């Protein structure tokens, strides 16, 4: 099955009971930050570097974190590092597909035929996401995979909510063109 990280993954468990504020508030979102970095940089080494840099910046700017939305705050830092340091805004051609590091997604109990067709669908969804321009890709990943609200996405990507909605709509239209036969897009398609 799909590996879905909880909103507060195992960092929290590993933390000492007396864990300090930074550890309690920011570190639970390390996995979310790494996931975003993986979809933006599309390779593990850059994603790790980006998250390391983001943690260092987060440590430095921690005193400015006021409200409770540490996840959007940390994702904002991760995204900024990805876009500035790793040139995510360029449409690179030397792209390593994100599925290289992906988990085994198929349930062994499935019939061989059904399993094969599911695998094909999953591959097509990944390819379709891969082909989206970065700004549309990050919007749809934040929304559908990381369950961010429109407001959170607006914070993270530093654009108005209206722009977020327009990007999501464009992303869905593009995905619908590619995946119409395997995904139900409702009235978008």
């Amino acid at each position, binding site marked *: 099955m*799909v*590996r*879905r*990280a909880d909103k507060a*993954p*195992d*960092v929290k468990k*590993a*933390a000492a009971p007396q*864990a*300090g*504020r*930074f*550890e309690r508030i920011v*570190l639970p979102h*390390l*996995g979310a*930050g*790494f*996931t975003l970095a*993986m979809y933006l940089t599309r390779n*593990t080494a850059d*994603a*790790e570097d980006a*998250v*390391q*840099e983001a*943690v*260092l910046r987060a*440590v*430095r700017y*921690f*005193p*400015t974190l*006021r409200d409770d939305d540490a996840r959007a705050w940390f994702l904002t830092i991760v995204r900024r590092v990805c876009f500035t340091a790793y040139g995510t805004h360029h449409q690179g051609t030397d792209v390593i597909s*994100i*599925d290289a*590091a*992906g*988990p085994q*997604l198929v349930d062994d109990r499935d019939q061989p035929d059904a399993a094969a067709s599911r695998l094909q*669908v*999953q*591959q097509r*969804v*990944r390819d379709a*996401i891969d082909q989206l321009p970065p700004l549309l890709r990050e919007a*749809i*990943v934040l929304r*559908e*995979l*990381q369950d961010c609200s429109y407001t959170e996405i607006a914070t993270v990507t530093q654009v108005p909510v209206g722009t977020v909605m327009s990007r999501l709509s464009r992303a*869905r239209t593009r*995905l619908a063109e590619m*995946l119409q036969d*395997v*995904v*139900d*897009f*409702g009235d978008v398609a």
Partner: protein
Amino acid sequence: MSELPDLHKAMAESLPVYEAPAALRMWAIEQARAVDQESLRDAPSLASMPWVRARSFYKWRTAAGLLIAAAVGWGAASLRPAGGTTPGISATTNQLVDAHVRSLLPSHLLDVESTDRHTVKPWFAGKTDIAPPVVDLADKGFPLLGGRLDYVDGHSAAVLIYGRRLHKINLFVWRSTTGEPPDRSFAVRGYSLLHWTRGGLSYWAVSDAAEAELEAFRDAYVQ
């Protein structure tokens, strides 16, 4: 009747949600503990940051007296010696500590790995406009581990890496633009820094080893 999944379900079933690699997570926990330790013990250093917002600081620190002390003793606690601390120095020391911490991550420490100073020194030639003295201090307890180029605070820096028992010392070297100020030591986020200037070169030693160790290192190095 449609059995097709909607987009949310299709993406959730097709796209991995990653967890941070274990090494990265452990490293981040160490960073967090360092900053959390410091914020408890050394609150004025947080408050002395120019971008700090008193409101958030106040919200989680009940000791209002510390806040007042922080406002008065600007920077005094985070950077020694007290007084004469400038935001420029604070930015430099912060960046040096970041560079040091980054260098401790797997595969980031060394560009040229050698305990032989005759290998390390030529390696810098052509890569930087300075030629730092490369001395092996193994007999004094500071074995040379290698060298690296880095970019800190607007300088391209030659970096020599020395060991000290289980600790690493990053020695950043760049051309001095400020004459020859007196040697100074700093403590930032649990790391020690020692700065000295000799022969037109500015040296910054950064380590998690104790300040006294850095002084011993400097004495061995400048001899």
